[in-house]
């Protein structure tokens, strides 16, 4: 692993060389940004339909044409789909978004495995805490 020492400011320590292919490209980052934005819209839209707490889509009231359909699907969803499934699907989308940010924006995909371990351990630990707290009688 080629390292150089540099003499200015923070960088008084070995620095990894960044090759041109080290990591994603400009296009990739923006594609991921679009995916993230769309996923957010999906999340909010799904929540609107499945839970009935929000207006049609993201708080915007439905145009009259769609209002009927929305109310029916809303009623159906609240009746048939359990809270757990709703929560599960929301969290899954959120986790996918988070994973994209971690892997590509924080560059973890291209980093050494040690950093994966360092970042993953707290999640494992805290899930134990979370489970113990959720089982609170």
């Amino acid at each position, binding site marked *: 692993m080629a390292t150089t020492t540099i003499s200015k400011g923070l960088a008084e*320590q070995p620095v990894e060389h960044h090759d041109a292919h080290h990591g994603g490209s400009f296009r990739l980052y923006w594609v991921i940004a679009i995916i993230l934005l769309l996923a957010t819209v999906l999340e909010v839209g799904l929540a609107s339909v499945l839970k009935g707490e929000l207006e049609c889509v993201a708080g915007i009231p439905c145009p009259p044409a769609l209002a009927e359909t929305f109310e029916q699907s809303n009623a159906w969803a609240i009746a048939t789909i359990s809270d757990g499934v709703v929560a599960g699907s929301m969290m899954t989308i959120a986790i996918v978004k988070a994973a994209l940010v971690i892997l590509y924006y924080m560059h973890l995909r291209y980093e050494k495995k040690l950093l994966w371990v360092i970042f993953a351990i*707290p999640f494992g*630990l805290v899930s*134990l*805490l979370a489970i*113990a*707290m959720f*089982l*609170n*009688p």
Partner: protein
Amino acid sequence: MAKTVRTFLSQFLGRIPTMRLGVGVVAALVLMSLTISITYAQGEVPTQEQNMAGAVLGIFLALVGLGMLTVVLIGFVLWATQTKIPFLPQGEPQGIARYFSFSTDHKVIGIQYFWTSFAFFILGGIMALLVRWELALPGLFFTTTQYNQFFTMHGTIMIFFFIIPMLTGAFGNYIMPLQIGTFDMAFPKLNTLSFWLLVPGGLLMLASYFVPGGTAQAGWTAYPPLSILASKQGPGQLLWGISLFIAGWSSIVGGMNFLVTIMNMRTKGMSYFRMPLFTWNIAVTAVLQVLGTASFAAGLVLQVMAMTFDFPFFDPVRGGSPLLWQHVFWFYSHPAVYIMILPAFGIISETIPVFSRKPLFGYRALVFATCGIGVLSFVVWAHHMFTSALLPQLRLPFMLTTMLIAIPSGVKIFNWLGTMAFGKLTLNTSMLFSLALVSMFVIGGISGVMMGSIPVDIHLHDTYFVVAHIHYVLFGGSAFAIFAGIYYWFPKMFGKMLDERMGIWHFWLSFIGFNLAFLPMHAVGALGMPRRYADYAPEFTELNFVITVGAFLLGFAQLILVANMAYAFAKGKQAVDNPWGARTLEWMTSSPPPHHNFEEPLTVEHDPYDYEWNPPYKPLPETAPAVGD
């Protein structure tokens, strides 16, 4: 115009020699007295708004100090505009002044931690003696509120401002970089920040003595709703929470620094399995600090919000749950007790081989035991909650993990015994304290395993049995190791030898006082005496009196150590590089080491405990016939 302003500001900055002399502390002290006077002026029992205002003002002034904030802001502007600051040509502070400055040298910082922790040790000890004074005889000498404040401050100060900073901040900071052969920590400026975060944390804790209503009084565990109620007596409980929040960040930053230093800056030849055990223990401790403390921070945030704004997180009537605090608190505080014991184990893993002149028995087993303790420490926390309204089905798994974690500690005990077996023992003060740890920790460990069993814990929880257990492991364990470390590393850190005869007196008086104080607690606890009560049933009188006598003996014995250190500074013998003939790297340089620790970078070719040792028994012949052949 801008230029004149900039010139004036740069000269203002340049003329403050106090920039080098810790202006923050002075400013904070002055301004904290101001805050306290303002709080007093508000009258006996402040209202909620006054509490909040006082606390906010207190944090702001304590942490920042008007002077520091001005300096930082001006400094930022000048740096951004690239104006030169003409510092007076005084250079780095020399001598004692270094220890009051923002030094980035890990050795200076280690010594800053050392004296700060030691001062808090004395204060925490005084709190303990006040507790024991109350409990010497039945009936009340102090008020119950005062009693609650004594034991709360005793626990809090000893844990967060003595044991953890002394073991990690003082010994860890000073010794670990030397042991891995490097010239400083990975982030020297963060190291400075780490110490200087402890200072306002400590000051806030001290300030709580002077506010109306007095200090915190809900125990070091601060369970709501008791703590929320206590916060209505005065700002003391709130100051407690904020103080620990700040001290916690000191711990996290320190832990992060240790890990990066150990992972990236070991000298050539110092592979992971050539690191001394002290460094290994500090490494695992650092992991616990980084991961665990943040949970405590989250809990403190919730408590502080509940105290200042009356948020209902812990109020069942409004939808909250006190049990949630217990989970979040113990999720940190259990690893915290391992933060307190692992470096202690590290210290005696250093002294025992040296003073047995024998290689450490089972180096790898000790390393894996340390890592095992680290991992397991995160999955035992609810054993502090067996009698809380924990889901019953959750209790059994925690009992199992609690039993499990005793095993690696047991491995360590056997390895230390194995190290000493057939060795040539030097029973100096450091070794005596190390031996005391081995035996006292076994007692403390066994009482812990007993309480790990749910049926037993149901009877023993919140009795003096618990107090006995914690003091056997924390005083008999951590504090004895700290003493062992002081007698071992004092020559290296301060360049003077401590007097052996005074040390032996210190040891025996401490050992006898310690056992006199804490052994009977097992009995009174098992007989039903509750902890944290200012009074007790008359049948416990004789034993409590004995305990108090022991405690006072233990307390006054520490004065011998203080006298010993004072004498060493005044008239002590100059220390050589390696007074004990040890083999770890910190002894391969002068006492104290030069600014960059070593004259030349070292390359390690030997194990840390490779003493010449000839076994006194004949090894078995290679080709012994198998039985039944």
